[in-house]
C-alpha cells in the first residue's frame, strides 16, 4: 500500500474530498472506510459487498454504487484498470491523504482537544461500550453525571460526537471501536 506524504497533496483537493464526505452525514464513516478499503485495488463488486457488510444493520440513503461515485467525483478513488469486465478502483493520493488526516485517532484527539471539559465523560462512554450497550442503557449508566446534569447535555450528544470521531460505532448497539480501545489504553492514566 502506498503511503501518501500528506504535505505533498494540494490542500484544496484534500479539502474538497473532505467536504464531499462531510456533506453526507449518514454515510461519512462508510465513505471513510471505503477509502481505507480501497487502499488495495478492489473490484466494484467487492467494494459493494464490503459496503453492504458494513451497513447490514444500518439505513443509509445511498447505494454502494452512489457512494463509490461520490468518492470518485471527489477525487478520492480512481478507476485503474478493468479486470474481466469489472472496474477496479483504487484510493488516490488525495484519498490517502484524507485517510491519514481524518483517521479516527486524529479525530478523537481533535475531539478531546476541543472539549477538554468533557474528556472524562468520553472516556467513560468508551469504557462502558467495550461491552455493547443500547442508548437506554447508556442513559442509565450516565444518569448521575454531574457535568451533564449541570449543563443539561444528554448522553446522546457525547455518543454522537464519539461516533463521528470513530471511537464508537453502531451495530444494533453502541460498541467501542479498536481505535476507541487503543485510545482508552493510551489515556489510562488520565481516567478518573
Amino acid at each position, binding site marked *: 500500500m502506498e503511503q501518501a506524504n500528506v504535505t505533498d497533496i494540494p490542500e484544496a483537493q484534500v479539502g474538497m474530498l473532505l467536504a464531499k464526505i462531510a456533506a453526507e452525514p449518514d454515510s461519512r464513516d462508510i465513505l471513510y472506510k471505503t477509502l481505507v478499503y480501497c487502499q488495495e485495488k478492489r473490484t466494484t463488486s467487492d467494494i459493494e459487498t464490503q459496503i453492504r457488510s458494513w451497513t447490514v444493520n444500518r439505513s443509509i*440513503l445511498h447505494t454502494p454504487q452512489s457512494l463509490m461515485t461520490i468518492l470518485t467525483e471527489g477525487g478520492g478513488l480512481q478507476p485503474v484498470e478493468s479486470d474481466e469486465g469489472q472496474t477496479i478502483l483504487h484510493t488516490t493520493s488525495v484519498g490517502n491523504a484524507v485517510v491519514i488526516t481524518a483517521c479516527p485517532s486524529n479525530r478523537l484527539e481533535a475531539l478531546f482537544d476541543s472539549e477538554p471539559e468533557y474528556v472524562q465523560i468520553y472516556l467513560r462512554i468508551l469504557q462502558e461500550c467495550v461491552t455493547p450497550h443500547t442508548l437506554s442503557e447508556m442513559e442509565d449508566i450516565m444518569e448521575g453525571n454531574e457535568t451533564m446534569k449541570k449543563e443539561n447535555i444528554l448522553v446522546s450528544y457525547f455518543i454522537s460526537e464519539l461516533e463521528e470521531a470513530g471511537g464508537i460505532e453502531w451495530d444494533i448497539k453502541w460498541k467501542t471501536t479498536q481505535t476507541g480501545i487503543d485510545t482508552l489504553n493510551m489515556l489510562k492514566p488520565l481516567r478518573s
Partner: protein
Amino acid sequence: MERFKLNRRDFLKATAVAGTIVSVSSLTGTTLVPKAEAATQPGTKIVRTQCRNCTADCGVLAHVKDGRVIKIEGDPTFRRSEGALCPKGLSGVQALYHPNRNKYPMKRVGQRGENKWKRISWEQAIDEIAHKLMEIRAKYGAEAVMGSTGGGGNPNFYTVCRFMNSFDSPNWFEPGAAQCYMPRTLMYAHTYGLYGTLQGQNTSLGDSNGVEGYFYNDLTMKSMILWATAPSYSGPSQAGRMLAEIRARGVKTVVIDPRFTPDAAKADLWLPIRPGTDVALGLAWIRYILEHKLYDKDFVMKWTNMPYLVNTKTKYFLRESDIKKGGDSNTYVVWDTKTKSAKAMPFPYDEQLSPALEGSYKVNGVVCKPSFQLLKDRVEPWTLKKAGETCWLDPKKIEEAILIFAKNATPSNVCLGVATDQNPNSTQAAHMSAILNILVGSVEKPGAVLQRYDDKGVGGRMRSSKLRHLLSEKQLNKRLGLKEHKGMLQWWIAQPNAILDAMTYGKPYKIKAWLERSGNKLGTAANSAAWVEGMKNLELIVHFFMYPTSFTAYADYVLPAVEWLETDFPTADFNAATARVAVTHTYETVNEYWFFAQLAKRCAELGHENCKRAWDPKACAPEPPYFDTMEKTLDNWVSMLDGMTWKEYKEKAPFEYVPMKEFRRFYVYKETDPKTGKPKGFSTPSKKCEVYLESMIELGRTGKPYSPWDLPPVDVDYDALPYYLEPDESPNKAIGKKFPLVMSNGRLPYWHHTTLRNIPYLREIKPYAEIWINPVDAKKYGISQGDWVVVESARGKTHAKALVTEGEAIGCVYMERFWNPEALNTSTHGWKEMNVNVLSKNTAPFNDVVGTYTLRGYQVKVSKAPSAPKNIWTKPEQFEPWMPQETDQTKIVEL
C-alpha cells in the same frame, strides 16, 4: 397536444375587481362585484368547494370538464366571502397544473443541492423513511427526530404534531406559532377564556374572528381599531371586504401600521407606528383610558378581576382562605371602602360591598393592591408624550385615536393582527389589546369581536387532533425551548431557535432528522443562512409539499402533496357546515394525513410501541386513532354531527348545524349555569375576564394548565401585566448607527407566506420583492424609484426593488417575504436573491413566554445595487414555462 390556456384578460379583470372591492363601499348590501358571466362549456360540471391558499377558506365554484378544472370563480352562496375571490384563490388552476409540481415520491441521488432525483414508489419511500427514523430513535433517541409544518395554507395543522407525539418525539415547530397567532390565542385564552370555539375566541380578523362585522346590515359597532393588521391585503375576499362594507355604513376605523395600506387609505386615522413599539403605544392607551375614566366601570367592577386584591409580595391574589380561617380558596378578596377592610367577594358579585379599584392596603401586615391599581402603576410612565417619542407618532393623533375607540365611536374593538406576534413583545401586545377590549367592556355584546358563538368547534374540531397524551413525561421534558417558554405548551410545540441551536451545535442533544410538511422554510424562518448551516448536520431530511422550493434542494426525499383542488376537508361558514371537495386528482399526490398515518403504521410494524398505540382506539381515546384511508378519517371527523359520513356531509353541505339565532348569542357569561345556579361567567380561574394574570405566573412556575405534569420552573417569573421592551436592535442603540432603518414586513394579496411565487400570472403582477422607502430616506441614501437596492442587516444581505412612497413611515422600510423558484437549480436555490428573512434576527432576547424571535422590528441599511440579482425572472414572457400543463385525472393513491 394543445396547451391549456386561460383567458388572460378575464383573469386580470377579475383581479382588478377583487382589488377594488376593498376600497369601494356598497350601500345596498348587495355585492359590489358584478357576477362573472363566464361562458360555461358544454359538458362542464360545476363543483362547489373551497380555496385553501390562506386561512380564509373562501367558497369557490370549480368548473370541471373531462376531469380537468378549467375555471375557478367565487361562490356567492358562501357567506363570508359572498362570491369574492382574491388572486390567490384564482390561481388555483395554475397551481394544480403547474408543470413543476411534485408528482411522485423521489429519492436523492447525487449530493444535496445537485437536484438529482430518482422516482420511487410510495411503499419504498415510507419503508425507507420509517427504517431510518427507527434507527435514529435507537441510536440517539426519538427526540432526535424533528417535524415541522406551516400555518395559514394548511388546514390540517396538527398532522405533524400528531405524528411526533406518536413517535414520542417532543420536537416539532412551525415558523408561525410564536411568530404567528400563538401569542394571541394564548393571551386571549388567559384573559377572556377558552371555549372550544373557533369564531370569536380572539380578535384576529384573519382567523375567522370579527364575525359581527359580517352582519353589516345589522351593525352595532361604531369603530374598529385595526392594529397590526392589513385585511385588504391578507384577506381581501373576507375581512378586507367586510371592512369596506362597514366603513360604507359609517363605522370609523383607525389603522396602526407603519405601512399605508388600502385600509389605512380609507381609515379615519392612520398611525404610522415604528415597528416593534406597539406595546408602548398600547400602555399609553391604557393609561389615558384609566386616567380619564373612559372604561366601562360596571363591567370592570363586576366582570373582571381588577377589584381583587393582590399580595404584592407573593404576586398572587388574596383568597378568602388567606384572611379567614376555613375560608374558601376559590373566593377572591376586595378592599371594601365602606368598612375599610378586606372582604371576600363571592362570585359573581356582592352588591353590599363597595370594592376599591385604586389604593394600597395592608392586610395581615402585607401590602396589597387591587389589580386595577397595579395596572395603573404599570402604565403610569406611558404618557402620550412618551408614547409619541417612542413610537414616532404625534401625541395629538394618539389621543384622537384613543377617543375614537373609547369615547366618540363606541362600541368599538381593537383587532390585533400578526405584526405584533413577530417580535419579542408578542405576548405583551396581545395582552395589551385584550386589556383594551376588556376595559371598554367590548365582550360578548352585540358588535363586539370577542364572542362565544355556539359554533360547537365545527371549524376547528373536524381535523387531526394532537394525540398529545401519547407523548411521555420524560420526552416532554426534553422539548427544545420548553423550560424557558412554557406558553408553547398551548400549541404543544417547540421553539424554532432552540431547535436550530440543537441542529447546529448539538446541545443539549443533536437533531438528526427533519420531516418538513410545508413550503419554503428558508423564506419564512428567521436568518435563513443559519438554517442551511444547521441542515448540513442532519442525516435525513424529508420534504412533503406540492412543488419544489429552496428547502427541497437540501432534502433527501421529496414527497408530493395534494393541492387544495384535490383535497376533501370539512369547514365552517358561521353556523353552516361547509365542505372543501376534491374536484380531481393528479399524479401520485397524497394528503398529508394519509402520509403521516402510513409512516406511523410502518414504524409500528418495525416495533415502535407508541406508534402502535396511535392506531388503537382505546389507547387514543377520547381522540380518534389513525385510520388507513382519508375516507375513514373524514367519516370520523364529521361523525360529530349526528354520526354523518363524509359522503352524507358533502352531499348535504352547506347546511346549518345550529340555527343562526342560537349561534349568534350574546352575554353568555350572564346565562345561568344549571349546575351552580349562578352565572356562567368566563372560562378563567376567577370566572371573570382577567387583566392581571396570576395564571401567567403559575404557567411559568409549573406549566399548568397545559402540562399534565409539573415542569421545572422558569428562572424569572412571567409578568402578570404587559410591559414594553425596547427592541434589541433599535435605532436608539449603537447598532442604529450602522443600520439606521427599521425593517418590517406585511402581507400582499398575491401570496400567503412563501406560497405561489411560482404562479405565472401572480409573478407577472408582482415579479419581484419591493422595498417600500419614504422619499426622505430614499433621498438620503441615494435611492430612486425603481432602483435595485441592496438591503443589509447584521445577518446578511439581499436585494429588492425600491418603491419610493410616503406610504412608508420615515426611518422605516417594508419588504414582504419572497423567494425565486426560477433560481432553484442555481447555487442559491432561490433563497438568497430577494429574501427578507436572510436579514431577520433569530437570536435572543426572545419573548419569555413563547420564545418569539424577531421577524419585524430590526435594523437594516440600504444602498443602490449595481444591478438586479442574477438568474431572476421579471418579464411576463419569462414565466411562460410555468403555464399550466393539462394532465389526466388519476386515482387517489392509498397503499
